[in-house]
């Protein structure tokens, strides 16, 4: 495996390769965001928004457990 294909997605090295060999190569997306660092930016934004939603919902569904109040001996409580 050369450097150009190292760490490529399996859907690309398998799916697109098979399709190209069968005469149906992938075409560019209708909305092509894979230009320069645009895709990286969108991945980060999408990951951040998705992560926020997961975190917000997780906090709502699984609030932190409250620790039982521990009274110190001799504190009068």
């Amino acid at each position, binding site marked *: *495996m050369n450097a150009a*294909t*190292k*760490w*490529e*997605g*399996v*859907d*690309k*090295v*398998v*799916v*697109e390769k*098979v*399709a190209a060999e*069968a*005469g*149906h*190569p*992938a*075409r*560019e*997306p*209708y*909305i*092509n*965001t*894979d*230009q320069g660092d645009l*895709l990286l930016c*969108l*991945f980060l934004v*999408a*990951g951040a928004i*998705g*992560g926020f*939603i*997961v975190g917000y*919902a*997780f906090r*709502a*569904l*699984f609030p932190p457990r409250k620790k039982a109040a521990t009274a110190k001996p001799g504190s009068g409580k």
Partner: protein
Amino acid sequence: MDKHWKAVVASVGLGIVLWPTPAHAMHVSEGILPIDWAGAWFLVAAPFVYWGLWTIKQRRAEDPRAMTLVAMVGAAIFVISCMPVPIPWIGTCSHPCGTGLGALLIGPGPTVVVASIALLLQALLLAHGGLTTLGANVVSMGVVGALVAYGLFRFLRLLRVPLFAAALAAGMLSDWATYATTSLELSAALHGDGSFWAMWAAIMAAFMPTQLPLGIAEGFVTAIAYRFVLERRPELLGACPDLRWMGGTDG
């Protein structure tokens, strides 16, 4: 701005957006499936999406709290299914699906809906998959992934298989079934004069080195997450009528 200039600006904007340039998409990418096959997979996916929407509507009417879990699962599937995981000894990356876990937490119908939304957003924003191949991707990841996980989990629980093992098997087989369906979609559309089964087996063999370990890892993640929810908030699963049978903490 008058109507004439609005039309010019809209045309130029659309032209810039649709200008063809190379892309590196994942899932079944744009243009791979002939249009008749792409349309057929939309027809297959449509009733499942409708069923999922109907289920969500029913569940929302019964218990609005369930929607928070649906939203969390949807966002998790979106993030998980576009997250490339490197497999060091192969040198490639692949992504888990998350629909197995989704099916165990919110049921298969809602999982189809949230997976469809995730795949649509990935196709629109992340050059991930495609709009014409959306139906095929919904069937493989959303429909098959969710139904295999749900059906297998239910079957194993009927056999009294412990919860953790049943959830692990469901998550693992859900991942593998998704890729087996992708292989089927490709070989059905592209085998030409060759053998359908030979092409299907060849694609499966190509997926296997990466997807075998990733499926096992997804199985463990599914089992751990399912057990966490069951231990912390079992009523969340009980809130879903078709998931009540999943309750219980044996195993």
